[in-house]
């Protein structure tokens, strides 16, 4: 066998999170992810995936980048810096948003939490923490707003899955029934002061807990204890990736990148062209909103058991028609699934019931065309 998973590591020493020692004690397979030593899996990633769908999983997300933006001009600075309209957020609420370059290309996708009138917390992908920090600082310069990299000030622990609220409830005085999706509260969890947010990247109900690094091991242990009788197990990045893929959520570097706009990914709704004042990338994005798209993000399922992977060609009638951005065997569906960018004409033919059979879609899986079916995203939607 030959495989990149079996190849030697990179020379640079990856950073440890406040929980790396815990992962080592749990016997996790650790991997260098965006310069951080992260748990890929603790045992079976399929079992971890299924636990999150049916009960709950515990994740260390301390590699994510955090920035605080504070000051009387913070809201205006973020309206200028991001595609969304953070000034319209009520304190305690959060939004999924993006930060784009002048040409409309995506620098990163973000969650922005408004903690108070003049205080925001922005969560960025680990690999993009540098570029996001630089862009925020540059764009905030003309406003009464301070941008601070807080990545080292937070451990981030996520509890995800249908049992999350039941697990968390005995550990906190916050009435979780009143915590809406995409809301955050300063809270006590197991007696430690945290920011408790009802957000996630798994397609399930769940919470993300921003804690002081010194409290991380204690909180992990208390959550593990509270969750044991509810089926909670620790879950690694491998499960996180298949969970977000089933939920149709984009991953930067796969579905999103500097050479794409939010519209390419079908996420034009995050671009608030009508918000007052300009914002970086507005002109390019306004043009892009009017144009016919050059490609369309679609979902594919395969009948074969061979798995489409990032970069594999999508074929229509045997001819190139697009490219797979993410693919995996889906634990929930039991078949290989993929997200892919395809030509709009191919997507249109396939979604029209009168012509659906004529597209003859396939994925070139290592030299063999495996028949594929176009499906609506997401692949999985939880019952709410």
């Amino acid at each position, binding site marked *: *066998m*030959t*495989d*990149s*998973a*079996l*190849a*030697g590591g990179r020379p640079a020493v990856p950073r440890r999170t406040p929980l790396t020692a815990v992962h080592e004690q749990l016997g996790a*397979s650790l991997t260098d992810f965006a310069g951080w030593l992260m748990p*890929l*899996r603790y045992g*079976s*990633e*399929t079992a971890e995936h299924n636990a999150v769908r049916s009960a709950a999983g515990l994740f260390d997300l301390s590699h994510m980048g955090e920035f605080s933006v504070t000051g009387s001009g913070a809201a205006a600075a973020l309206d200028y810096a991001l595609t969304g309209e953070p000034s319209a957020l009520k304190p305690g609420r959060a939004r999924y948003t993006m930060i784009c370059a002048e040409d409309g290309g995506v620098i990163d996708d973000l969650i922005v939490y408004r903690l108070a009138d003049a205080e925001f917390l922005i969560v960025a992908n680990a690999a993009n923490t540098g570029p996001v920090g630089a862009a925020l600082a540059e764009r905030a310069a003309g406003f009464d707003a301070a941008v601070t990299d807080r990545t080292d000030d937070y451990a981030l622990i996520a509890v995800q899955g249908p049992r999350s609220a039941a697990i968390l409830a005995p550990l906190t005085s916050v009435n979780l029934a009143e915590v809406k999706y995409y809301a955050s509260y300063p809270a006590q969890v197991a007696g430690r002061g945290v920011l408790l947010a009802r957000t996630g990247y798994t397609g399930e109900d769940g919470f993300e807990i921003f804690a002081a690094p010194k409290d991380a091991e204690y909180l992990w242990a208390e959550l593990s204890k509270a969750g044991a009788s509810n089926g909670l197990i620790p879950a690694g990045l*491998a499960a996180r*990736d*298949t969970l977000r893929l089933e939920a149709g959520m984009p991953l930067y570097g796969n579905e999103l990148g500097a050479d794409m706009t939010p519209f390419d990914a079908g996420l034009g709704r995050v671009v608030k062209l009508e918000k007052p004042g300009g914002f970086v990338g507005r002109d390019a994005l306004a043009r892009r909103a009017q144009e016919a798209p050059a490609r369309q993000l679609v979902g594919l399922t395969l009948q074969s*058991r*061979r*798995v489409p*992977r990032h970069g594999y060609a999508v074929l229509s009638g045997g001819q190139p028609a697009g490219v797979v951005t993410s693919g*995996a*065997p889906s634990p929930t569906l039991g078949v290989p699934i993929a997200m892919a960018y395809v030509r709009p004409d191919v997507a249109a033919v396939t979604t029209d019931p009168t012509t659906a059979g004529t597209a003859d879609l396939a994925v070139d899986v*290592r030299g063999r065309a495996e028949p594929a079916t176009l499906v609506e995203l997401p692949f999985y939607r939880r019952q709410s």
Partner: protein
Amino acid sequence: MTVPSELYYTPEHEWVALSGSSASVGITDHAQRALGDVVFVSVPAVGARVTSGEPCGEVESTKSVSDLYSPVDGEVTEVNPEIDDDPGLVNSDPYGAGWLFKVKLDETDGDVPPGLLSASEYTALTQEDE
């Protein structure tokens, strides 16, 4: 990590059990750990010719796909009938119920086929990886 002393190994992480003119083939504990959950194994068909060091199948796991290399020259006589329905056997019992295929060897002069590693040589190789 388990490396049974009675088996031989390839640098590509297959194991082979030699018994007279027959060889059983699978992937190692080290390999299954690195791959994670195996979801599909494509093995050569019964009657197919396999050649030492050449790809003869593939192993799909959640995160990646890998070529399966034949450790020996010969003809495939049997494939594990359980592996199609339960590829997870490769994870749970890589040297036992997770075996993949059997080969009738071309050369049966009693020597170990060339290019194979002993358990101690393979252990040393995997430690270099880490």
